[in-house]
């Protein structure tokens, strides 16, 4: 009897150990799968029904805006968390992007119009930065600074947007704008230039979101 008890206890122990190992393995694979899915979640252009414009499927819509902390042109760190409670338009752009240049004056005008309601634009440059070559890095930053000066951007501008492109859907096309409500949720997104009216409508949507 004693021997049987010992054997059964040993079998149960081994069973429990294997079950735990299998569960841990499954959990790890589940997390890896989620990471892989997040990394491959691209913003995708889809054909809309006849008579309406094509639309983008933006995986981030309805989800919390991914956190980031990036430097501005002076080296100061700016994070999304610094703007908690604000309604935000997170605008990815680049110096080589002609449509970005067209929409920047609209963003400035709308930012000034809605600032009193707790609205802010965060500009994020997706220009490549050559961090291996200090001289080239300086040139890269100067080019971004020239764009900011020429377009008279009054809102915060961060650099190295490429480093956060994956959580924002890959940023295969610019400009890309994400409208974030006071709770930090992405309520709308625009890929490519649309119109000032459409941008304003999305700002109002973000301002009105409970």
């Amino acid at each position, binding site marked *: 009897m004693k021997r049987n008890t010992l054997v059964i206890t040993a079998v149960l122990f081994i069973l429990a150990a294997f079950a735990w190992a299998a569960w841990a393995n499954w959990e790890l694979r589940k997390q890896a799968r989620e990471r892989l899915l997040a990394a491959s979640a691209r913003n995708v252009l889809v054909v809309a029904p006849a008579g309406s414009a094509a639309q983008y499927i933006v995986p981030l819509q309805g989800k919390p805006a991914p956190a980031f902390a990036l430097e501005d042109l002076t080296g100061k760190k700016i994070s999304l968390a610094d703007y908690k409670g604000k309604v935000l338009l997170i605008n990815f752009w680049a110096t080589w992007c002609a449509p970005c240049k067209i929409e920047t004056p609209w963003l400035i005008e709308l930012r000034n119009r809605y600032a009193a309601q707790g609205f802010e634009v965060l500009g994020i440059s997706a220009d490549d930065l050559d961090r291996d070559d200090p001289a080239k890095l300086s040139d890269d930053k100067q080019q971004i600074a020239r764009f900011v000066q020429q377009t008279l951007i009054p809102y915060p501008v961060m650099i190295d947007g490429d480093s956060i492109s994956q959580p924002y859907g890959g940023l295969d*096309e610019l400009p890309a704008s994400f409208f974030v409500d006071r709770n930090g949720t992405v309520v709308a997104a625009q890929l490519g230039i649309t*119109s000032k009216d459409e941008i304003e409508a999305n700002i109002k949507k973000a301002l009105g979101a409970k």
Partner: protein
Amino acid sequence: MIAGKTEMRLAAVAALALASVFAHSQSPLLDESQLSAPKPAAVAYLYPQQVTVPANQPTTLALHFRVAPGLHINSHMPSEAELIPATLTIPESSGVRIESAIYPHGIDITLPLDLKTRINVYTGDFVIQARIVAAAGNHLVEARLRYQACDNNACMPPKTITAPIEVIAR
């Protein structure tokens, strides 16, 4: 003997349970349909894929490229300094060097939302005349075209494609 049978049954049940758990935990992370397909390149290299040239003498090659419908790329001489020009290079280690390149004139276009600004671009098929000098022998050259593509509403990040050409120099 009865206890021995119980142990056997218990071991069999345990083995089955473990097998089912392991079978599930080893399934593929994702099937292909769950991953976004990569986008095709905006510019494709067309031809030539093989050329025969005199060794150590300057020779002009016409490299043919095609921009995907609905897109344009900045020409080699874009109208604004910050725009990224189309540029052809050949790696120095390939046994073939590029002396110069003659780029086609682009066409001037305006974007629908800004009719005042004209940008100089390539669309459709275009040809770059590359003047090369090849050392004697066979060389697999991977010429590189760096470009930046846009449509009327959005721009894609700069990209470099390779144009593989077998250069036979005699």
